[in-house]
């Protein structure tokens, strides 16, 4: 499979690296709303970037601006050093996968996949082989003569993928490509797409609202909210070191504690009316901060248990215990009424049941501080 995929390009472009894409100050205003608000970021050749955000975050508009379907009001799109902001869609040489596949329903699978080649002036006799290789790369060899309507959703999306990569574009755009597929298929396709993009060295810009997909597939994630770029970094950075509350809330489950951090003896402490949150590192003077604690870092102990040394402690009452296969999610109502989320291994017996008073503990090192946030 590896062989066929890497041979899929026109002669002379073997292993052509993906494009370097620079977005500089992109702005798009619809009426009163700034759908995309001054977004600048760079995608290195061969990188897999995910534009992540809730609906209305501007991620799709940004993708459509890169594709050329929407004109930005301000800013530049530079691909391999060339400003393509004014280049019409059909001359940008981009591959794109749409959420609903967007196959040409009146054409055969082979004609669908061959369409970009045909538009690029590749002769008919050369097309057939390239089309077949692209189909083999998505495990659909021999399906060329079928009609898209005869295929399942997953197969249709593979055809769409083959069509997007057949001409070996330096840049592949994907607009929620897996949104219409069921979970099992989605996960298989995530791996598939990642393998293909690596083998072909494509630069990929993928749009999704699914944080799990973003974390699994991406080299870089650009988190968008309200049209603005919230944070841009590796999945590890976005999950482990969120720079803002928005980022901490969007990626994965998190417990947030807001307050003033100050020095108490040897420790830095976020003092809350009902508990103490130890904060790693030295704190010169007092400052506002938000502390992020991931649910898996928290341990649940019975209310009367001997307190462990130098841990953060928080009393609460178990309000729900949700079994989720490989883990269980326990909701604990804190003293201020806010609900805290704890993830435990589902194998180990839970030392409590719903309604019990418990103490939550976690190591200071496992939490992350968002400085300056108030």
């Amino acid at each position: 499979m590896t062989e066929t995929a890497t041979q899929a390009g026109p002669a002379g472009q073997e292993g052509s690296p993906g494009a370097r894409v620079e977005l500089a100050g992109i702005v798009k205003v619809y009426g009163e709303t700034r759908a995309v608000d001054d977004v600048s970021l760079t995608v290195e050749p061969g990188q897999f970037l995910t534009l992540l955000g809730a609906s209305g975050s501007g991620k799709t508009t940004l993708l459509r601006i890169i594709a050329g379907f929407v004109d930005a009001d301000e800013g530049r799109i530079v691909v391999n050093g060339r400003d393509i902001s004014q280049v019409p869609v059909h001359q940008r040489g981009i591959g794109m996968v749409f959420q609903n596949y967007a196959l040409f329903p009146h054409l055969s699978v082979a004609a669908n996949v061959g369409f970009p080649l045909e538009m690029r002036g590749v002769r008919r006799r050369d097309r057939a082989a390239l089309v077949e290789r692209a189909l083999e790369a998505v495990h659909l060899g021999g399906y060329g003569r079928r009609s898209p309507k005869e295929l399942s959703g997953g197969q249709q999306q593979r055809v769409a993928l083959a069509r997007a990569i057949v001409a070996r574009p330096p840049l592949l755009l994907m607009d929620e490509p897996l949104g219409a597929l069921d979970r099992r298929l989605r996960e298989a396709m995530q791996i598939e797409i990642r393998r293909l993009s690596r083998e072909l060295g494509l630069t990929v810009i993928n749009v999704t609202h699914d944080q799990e997909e973003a974390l699994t597939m991406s080299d870089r994630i650009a988190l968008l909210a309200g049209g603005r770029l919230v944070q841009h970094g590796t999945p590890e950075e976005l999950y482990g070191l969120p720079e803002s509350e928005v980022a901490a809330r969007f990626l994965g489950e998190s417990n947030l504690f807001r307050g003033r951090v100050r020095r108490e003896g040897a420790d830095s402490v976020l003092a809350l009316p009902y508990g103490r949150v130890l904060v790693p590192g030295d704190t010169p003077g007092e400052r506002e901060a938000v502390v992020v604690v991931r649910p898996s870092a928290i341990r649940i102990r019975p209310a009367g248990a001997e307190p462990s040394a130098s841990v953060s402690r928080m009393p609460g009452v178990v309000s729900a215990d949700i079994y989720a296969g490989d883990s269980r999610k326990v909701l604990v109502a804190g003293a201020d009424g806010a609900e805290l989320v704890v993830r435990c291994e589902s194998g180990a017996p839970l030392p409590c049941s719903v309604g019990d008073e418990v103490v939550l503990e976690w190591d200071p090192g496992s939490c992350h501080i968002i400085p300056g946030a108030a």
Partner: protein
Amino acid sequence: MRAGLGVRLFACLIALLFVTPTLIVAATSVTSGSMVTFPPKGFSLRWFQEVLTDPEWLTALGNSAQVGLLAAVLAMAAGTSLAFAAARSRFLPPALVTGLAVLPMTVPLVVAGIGFYLVYIRVGLSGNVLSLGIAHAVLGLPFVFVNVLAALTGVDRRVEEAARVSGATEAVTLLRITLPLVAPAALVGGVLAFVSSWDEVVVALFLNTPQFRTLPVVMWSQVRSGVEPSISAVATLITLVSLLMAALVLVGPAVVKKVRRRT
């Protein structure tokens, strides 16, 4: 939900009511006598033979066929263009385009007939396939327009975008993707336009000349001088053609799909 027996019987009764006059006319056409009578006297195809060898009827048949085809082609072209304007134009309000395109359906045929008559006298166009073909194209246009507009609103814009991003210009996208997708609907509209022209008599009466008459017009003038079984034979022939067209509309799209799948 399946209809109950009573409902189905009622539907059959209504259908029978609709087709009875046609069946009676068809029956009178196979009479061996020389009068229109029901039930027919004996059985013979002599009146069909008479009609199909009579130069007057044959000329009228040819005229009707030509006018119908021209009307269908023109209606398809204009109706499809207007449907695109209604669905896709950035400048024209869709309500305005739709209103204009379906207007021919609401204008009384007498008014339309007088209108065309007056205009054609002015421009010196009358008594030929072109003049009546244009008039019938206008009358048939709404069929094409409504059909294509419905098909066009069903075309996923992202399919067109996929073509654009694949390297197709807007013109190529239109020719290779959008038009083929709405072509079956346009064809159905065209067939309906043909059928509406095929039996249209009011406008055709206004625009006929002694040298240029369509089948319905000839029938009309013959009926006025007395009904012969030849009229019944022509009526039956006209009906058969219309039925054939209706069958084409109903079965055509399925056949097209099958053929496409094979290629």
